[in-house]
């Protein structure tokens, strides 16, 4: 495993011939391992129809795989290695990866939407199958036997039953012509290639489906891993940025003199409202940024009072609106209903608040090639954006992805890199920018706030006859998830570049996620105008499963209200309206694993003790993946304090590549989504975001972690794998919320589920 990390991060390509790669290992000491020979001419991404764009074989038989997908801390590199090893008949440890280097990997759209395995693995699988076929055909000619008499093990092709008559991939690879071997279709996430090689049948898999250790885990724990924070380039300066005091403030003046006294200070960079400093050392840059006297205008406040946010969201005229689902006559059926339930739910702005606040190194060379090292999820898109920002052709920009902290969407690593580009351009030297905690938590783009209004009608038998759903959201696409334009970046916006690539993204109760079969449904969705168009700290973007957790919180909490009105057990009630077999199976498996006893919520309160315990369920369907989560919660009725004691999550994403790594990702996802459910809410005043650190933007800590977290994976080898990075984020908040209701009869309708909100709900639900 460490072999892999060492190799892939230190290799220098000398040139290739056919499928064979000639390389030398160079360990140049501590500095700078990641500085692979930067080409000085053009640096175009390789063409997808060449086989060696996807994989190359070293003389020793080890295999290098090139992919535009990147690792964001969930183990995708290991899963991709298993998929390629399976098709190629090599051992996974023989595989090393080059990920997300725009001049060495095909543009696969980067990482997003939980698609890396679902879509991103396909071209690799097909390329590997084709490589295996070409290699075996060649071996058959060299060994003088027909291909069906050959078998491949660990990259050695041998005559069946005669292991001495063999030839290795390393010996064959140089003679394989890789030109035009593959046919490419689609683009970005959907890019696929096909060759003459047929991928194996799932029934013959021996590597896929195994719990191999993650390739990055051991070197990380041993302290040998290099993140983008550890990229060091000769001549590199350190940069820090200074943000406007208030949203919309214009720069009045910058007084450099106090910064100048700091040893190592190099210069202050001002471009419009973008202000930064560069210095010889990180410490000097931090001190200089603090010492700089920057005067800003005091503009009119652009945000509402936070306590009026949701009212304001319900009253403002939407920017755009659409009907996302219409079936039957919901309005008519609702007015004819024997019993009506209506409720409003609210979800706050949330911050990615990544563990490392974002780091990048940029070496801008306008007359040569600009190189940017960044941990953002979509390196090829960054390349386009930086070319625009610098006003140079794309062929003059190379982005090299190096892992940063877990990113969960579009956190701001993109903006960090743009800051580095702006500072390097002005300084004429390579610049490393490390964002501060406040840069990330307060100034990173946010997951959007959303409000929901729902109503349902029941007939006399307690059957749902009508369902209505309306959402009003800030757009998760205001800052486009593809950071492929200059206006996408905070720093560029501060220099005056406008964001022109935003799109309206709706919080939908639509076809894709609609799992319940009610006879009459009407759903519409609205996108609200942003409070402020340029460089707003409340600008919105993708945060792990864009609007999914919010919509599932609202929809699945409300469904529980309807089940309670019908006086039916919440699982039984859901099953009545669910056709999807796999979702039904996930739900019933969750019930069995938990030991769910059928009864309506809330429980009948036998005692008046301070604490009450309840259980709640929620389900989600996302991009083909099914999830059912059950939470058990203990609530203190006097204080509103709550503790999630147990989580059970059943997860079905089709074929499982690596059960242990998948389980780990889901487990962590449950804790992160628990954090978002219980704690996370971006605070702001009328001019600024006031969540600036871990105290003002609290997240789950060790004391919040449930005593028991149980994951059940339902494997479907016959179904192509779907995503796993995001789906289990969805049901957690509603499952916890429904457990609070089950325990106490009090219904919370705003996230996060803080003690204050629980207490308020307890008070308004009458005497307990």
């Amino acid at each position: 495993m460490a072999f892999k990390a060492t190799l892939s991060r230190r290799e220098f390509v000398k040139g290739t011939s056919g499928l064979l790669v000639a390389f030398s290992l160079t360990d140049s000491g501590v500095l700078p391992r990641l500085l692979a020979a930067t080409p000085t001419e053009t640096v175009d991404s390789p063409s997808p129809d060449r086989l060696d764009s996807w994989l190359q074989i070293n003389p020793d038989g080890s295999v290098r795989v090139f992919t535009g997908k990147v690792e964001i801390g969930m183990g995708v590199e290991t899963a991709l290695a298993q998929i390629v090893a399976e098709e190629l008949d090599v051992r996974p440890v023989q595989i090393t990866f080059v990920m997300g280097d725009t001049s060495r990997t095909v543009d696969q759209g980067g990482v997003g939407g939980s698609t890396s395995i679902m879509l991103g693995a396909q071209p690799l699988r097909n390329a590997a199958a084709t490589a295996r076929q070409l290699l075996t055909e060649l071996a058959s000619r060299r060994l003088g036997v027909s291909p069906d008499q050959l078998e491949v093990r660990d990259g050695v092709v041998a005559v069946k039953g005669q292991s001495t008559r063999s030839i290795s991939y390393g010996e064959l690879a140089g003679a394989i012509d890789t030109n035009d071997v593959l046919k490419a279709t689609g683009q970005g996430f959907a890019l696929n290639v096909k060759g003459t090689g047929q991928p194996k049948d799932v029934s013959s898999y021996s590597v896929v489906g195994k719990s191999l250790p993650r390739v990055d885990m051991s070197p990380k724990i041993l302290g040998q891993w290099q993140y983008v924070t550890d990229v060091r380039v000769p001549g590199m300066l350190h940069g820090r940025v200074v943000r406007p005091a208030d949203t919309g403030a214009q720069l009045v003046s910058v007084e450099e003199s106090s910064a100048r006294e700091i040893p190592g200070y190099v210069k202050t960079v001002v471009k419009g409202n973008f202000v930064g400093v560069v210095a010889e050392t990180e410490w000097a840059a931090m001190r200089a940024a603090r010492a700089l006297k920057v005067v800003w205008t005091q503009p009119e406040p652009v945000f509402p009072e936070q306590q009026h946010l949701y009212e304001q969201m319900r009253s403002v005229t939407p920017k755009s609106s659409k009907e996302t689902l219409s079936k039957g006559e919901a309005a008519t059926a609702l007015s004819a209903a024997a019993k009506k339930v209506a409720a409003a739910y609210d979800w706050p702005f949330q911050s990615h608040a990544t563990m490392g606040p974002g780091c990048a190194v940029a070496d801008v060379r306008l007359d040569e090639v600009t190189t940017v090292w960044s941990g953002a999820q979509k390196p090829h898109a960054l390349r386009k954006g930086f070319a625009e920002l610098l006003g140079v052709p794309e062929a003059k920009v190379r982005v090299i992805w190096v892992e940063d902290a877990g990113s969960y969407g579009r956190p701001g690593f993109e903006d960090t890199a743009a800051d580095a580009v702006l500072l390097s351009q002005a300084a004429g030297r390579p610049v490393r920018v490390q964002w501060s905690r406040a840069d990330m938590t307060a100034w990173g783009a946010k997951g959007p706030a959303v409000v929901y209004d729902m109503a349902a009608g029941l007939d006399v038998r307690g059957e749902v006859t009508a369902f209505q759903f309306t959402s009003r959201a800030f757009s998760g696409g205001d800052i486009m998830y593809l950071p492929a334009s200059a206006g996408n970046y905070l720093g560029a916006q501060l220099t005056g570049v406008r964001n022109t690539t935003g799109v309206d993204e709706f919080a939908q109760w639509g076809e894709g996620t609609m799992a319940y079969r009610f006879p009459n449904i009407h759903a519409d969705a609205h996108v609200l105008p942003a409070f402020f168009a340029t460089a707003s700290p409340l600008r919105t973007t993708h945060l792990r499963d864009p609007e999914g957790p919010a919509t599932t919180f609202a929809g699945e909490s409300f469904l529980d209200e309807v089940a309670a009105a019908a006086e039916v057990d919440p699982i039984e009630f859901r099953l009545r309206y669910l056709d999807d077999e796999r979702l039904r199976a996930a739900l019933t498996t969750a019930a069995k694993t938990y030991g769910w006893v059928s009864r309506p919520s809330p429980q009948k309160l036998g005692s008046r003790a301070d604490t009450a315990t309840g259980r709640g369920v929620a389900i989600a369907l996302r991009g083909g993946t099914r999830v059912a989560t059950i939470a058990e919660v203990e609530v203190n009725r006097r204080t509103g304090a709550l503790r999630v004691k147990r989580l059970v999550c059943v997860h079905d994403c089709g074929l499982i590549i690596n059960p242990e790594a998948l389980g780990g990702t889901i487990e962590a996802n449950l804790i992160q989504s628990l954090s978002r459910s219980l704690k996370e809410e971006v605070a702001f005043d009328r001019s600024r975001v006031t969540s600036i650190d871990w105290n003002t933007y609290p997240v789950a800590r060790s004391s919040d972690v449930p005593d028991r977290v149980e994951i059940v994976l339902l494997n479907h080898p016959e179904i192509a794998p779907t995503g796993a990075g995001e789906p289990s984020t969805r049901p957690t908040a509603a499952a916890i919320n429904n457990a609070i209701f089950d325990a106490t009869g009090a219904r919370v309708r705003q996230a996060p589920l803080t003690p204050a909100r629980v207490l308020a709900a307890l008070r308004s639900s009458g005497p307990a």
Partner: protein
Amino acid sequence: MSPLALKVNGRAHMVDVDPQCPLLYVLRDNLALNNPRFGCGLGQCGACTVLLDGRAVRSCRLPVSLAAGKEILTLEGLGSEGNPHPVQRAFIDEQAFQCGYCLNGWVLTAKVLLEKNPHPTDAEIRSAFAGLVCRCGSHVGIFNAVRRAAQSGKAGA
């Protein structure tokens, strides 16, 4: 700027730095040690944890001058590939992390905890970790790793 003698992972170094500069930046930028990581610079998360004379400290807030003359241990110095520290072994066996950016705090705090208390209860584990952040939510794997290390009985060594 003034010259300072530091002892890191058993090796002596002379550095010429502002004595007020936090230890974190000296380790990272002057000595090219990657492992103490910048998470907040505010003492709130633990990503910058190193051991100072065997105690877990947050290097982002500690002026380097206060570390002079003490034994500084970073994650790099804890164990090696062929000979991981038993606590590292347990974290590897549990595949405990997601991105791993936070892990200096968790692994080094676990080491200190198990030295003092070789068989901590769940409550003691949680309270030892109270000041640490893992944004990915790897806590369940982390707690399992601590239990595993405790069971191995070697972690206090």
